[in-house]
């Protein structure tokens, strides 16, 4: 390989020298948490350092989805993928399984949960299987290293999927997917009567706002919240494949929910399906993975202009890091997207390739 070839490849967007240049404070690379499978289809809760070292890979009985990271203890809850009856509380230092958290009677985990900033409470999106589709936010108290369910709120919607904290740390932002599913089933039962909504809910269960999108079959699934309180939600459209429907929506502070401005070419690239969203607060960037379209897309959050359209097969989890974003895939090598320059620089990570599930969290 000639030197000019190497230079050309680097300029083309896939950096070659990235690994050697990474420096981390204290010498410890950031810890990335994810659900992951092995090639035999067995499920794991894993923690990998960004430099590729495996911190732990704990076998779990159910496939997990998102991870709720404790704000100050080395704990994380790997949340069961819907419809799930178990989530796993893991010690992130060594992967020790501290507790298998079973869902309450007539409740299923939906794949997402968050710890409150003080660390004592955890809130989980759940499905009421006695009244299928009725969304519930399970409230759990952490005491002596174990989670205990002590109550629940209504999600004020159908089939809640992801929830996150608003920037005040006290208000829950809830993506009610609007899809009714029965117990132990992923089959959508109400495609003609879906009712997706974005809900803001106080931690005590008081409803603050409830908004819908224009298209009834547009399921609000995933969220990202900026430090200024801007909320972005990513949709999965359940209607006809050829129908043109906005797949991202934004709620800026004090404003109503509306479509996020994207080009028609990018909308089509997403193939009616967004997976994970992340916001980089310092760089004011929004990142979205679209595994069905095989693309990871970045926009300027304030101008709503495209910054990067990266082909990446089966891309899934995405999380902000110092340089920009880290993105995982179910099929190939994970990537670092260094966005500190006008043209983002893409570097393959030395993590194991493929089999990464839908979400990535930094611990």
């Amino acid at each position, binding site marked *: 390989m000639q030197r000019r070839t*190497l230079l050309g490849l680097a300029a083309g967007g896939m950096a070659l020298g990235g690994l050697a240049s990474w420096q981390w404070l204290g010498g410890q690379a950031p810890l990335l948490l994810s659900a992951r499978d092995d090639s035999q289809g067995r499920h794991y809760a894993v923690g990998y350092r960004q430099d590729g070292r495996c911190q732990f890979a704990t076998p779990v009985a159910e496939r997990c989805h998102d991870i709720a990271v404790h704000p100050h203890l080395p704990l994380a809850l790997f949340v069961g993928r819907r419809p799930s009856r178990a989530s796993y509380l893991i010690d992130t230092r060594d992967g020790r399984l501290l507790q298998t958290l079973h869902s309450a009677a007539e409740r299923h985990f939906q794949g997402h949960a968050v710890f409150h900033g003080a660390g004592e409470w955890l809130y989980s999106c759940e499905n009421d299987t006695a009244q299928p589709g009725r969304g519930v936010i399970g409230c759990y108290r952490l005491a002596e290293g174990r989670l205990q369910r002590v109550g629940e709120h209504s999600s004020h919607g159908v089939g809640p*999927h992801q929830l996150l904290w608003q920037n005040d740390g006290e208000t829950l932002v809830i993506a009610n997917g609007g899809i009714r599913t029965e117990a132990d089933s992923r089959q959508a039962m109400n495609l003609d009567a879906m009712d997706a909504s974005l809900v803001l809910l106080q931690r005590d269960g008081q409803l603050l706002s409830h908004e819908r999108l224009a298209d009834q079959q547009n399921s609000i699934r995933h969220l990202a919240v900026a430090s200024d309180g801007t909320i972005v939600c990513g949709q999965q459209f359940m209607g006809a494949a050829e129908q043109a429907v906005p797949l991202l929506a934004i709620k800026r502070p004090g404003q109503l929910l509306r479509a996020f401005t994207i080009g028609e070419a990018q909308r089509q690239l997403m193939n009616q399906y967004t997976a994970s969203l992340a916001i980089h607060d310092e760089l004011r960037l929004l990142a979205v993975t679209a595994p069905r*379209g095989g693309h990871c897309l970045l926009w300027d959050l304030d101008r709503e202009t495209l910054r990067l359209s990266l*082909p990446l*097969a089966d891309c899934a989890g995405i999380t902000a890091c110092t340089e920009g974003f880290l993105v995982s895939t179910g099929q190939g090598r994970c990537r670092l997207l260094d966005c500190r320059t006008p043209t983002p620089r893409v570097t393959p990570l030395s993590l194991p*390739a493929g*089999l990464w599930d839908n979400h990535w969290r930094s611990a």
Partner: protein
Amino acid sequence: MRPLHLFVLCSALGLVACSPSDPRQSASASLANDMLLPAYQAWASASAQLPVSAQALCATPQPADNALPQARQDLQTAQRSWAALQPLQLGPLSEGNRAWQVQFWPDKKNLVRRQVENLIDQHPALSRAQLERASVVVQGLSAYEYLLFDSQLDLARPADRQRYCALLGHIAGHQQQLSAQILAELQGEQGFLKHLQQFPNTRFAEADEALAELLRAQVNGLDLLKKKLGTAIGKLSKGIPQPLQAEFWRSQASLDSLAAAVHSAEQLWQGQADQGIASLLDDTQQPLRQRIDQAYADIRQQLAALQQPLDKLLSNDAGRAQLDALYVSLDRLHRLQERDLAGALGIQLGFNAHDGD
């Protein structure tokens, strides 16, 4: 750069497959040049013929006697070349809703007929721009087939030509332009085919990623064939055959399309001069290679034995049994490639795209 330095660079990146002599890189490059490029060229060439015969058919005051048969024949050539791309849908064709612009399937509610008729009712003097703004349902070969083969239409009649010729010409033009555009995006220094040859590049970090895309396209293509045949024979409708939901049923080209797609999948497996995916199995994996070879051979033989069009076969017990057996064979091949072959090659085909969460 000396080999040692290249090795150090590769090791540092964990890019173990970037040597030019790497068999996975060789297979990917060979399949790009010897398999994908000719298949896409054949499709673009067949699509370029559509406007020629459409124009001849719509000539005033009277087209030549052979104009309608020629237009139909050109459509069938385009259908076959398009079917051959089913296991090769990757890169530009797989992105941005483009495959839908070529073929609308499944058409469970006869949307093709309804939307074509609505479009012409609304725009009797349809322009190309109006077609481009219309639904993909009316932009592709499925609508073109309706115009040329539907039993209630006859473009030999002046009144039908008067009503439908504008749409016929614009679909032909759209297909020509779309296929030429996709071919252009495959070729050239920054084209997708180059990304299958040298690594790393802006799309693939290493040969394994390119190989995974090739294998995924092939596996997805086989899955689509199963769905197409399965829909027609009633696998999704409690065993009740649905001949009007088969692909290209109006022109009775369903089985021809299936055969073209299977042939193409087998070419990807074998490659030119044994440079296909099969060549990557080592000596200990030859039993798997033989099983997959045999699975392709079985399907070829079964297809060759089908002497009637799909709708005729569906109308009798013996025919339905043949089609059921063909479906079982397709399913076996699909599983062998998706599970056993991917596992043997250590390739992850990904799952988030099918996740639904």
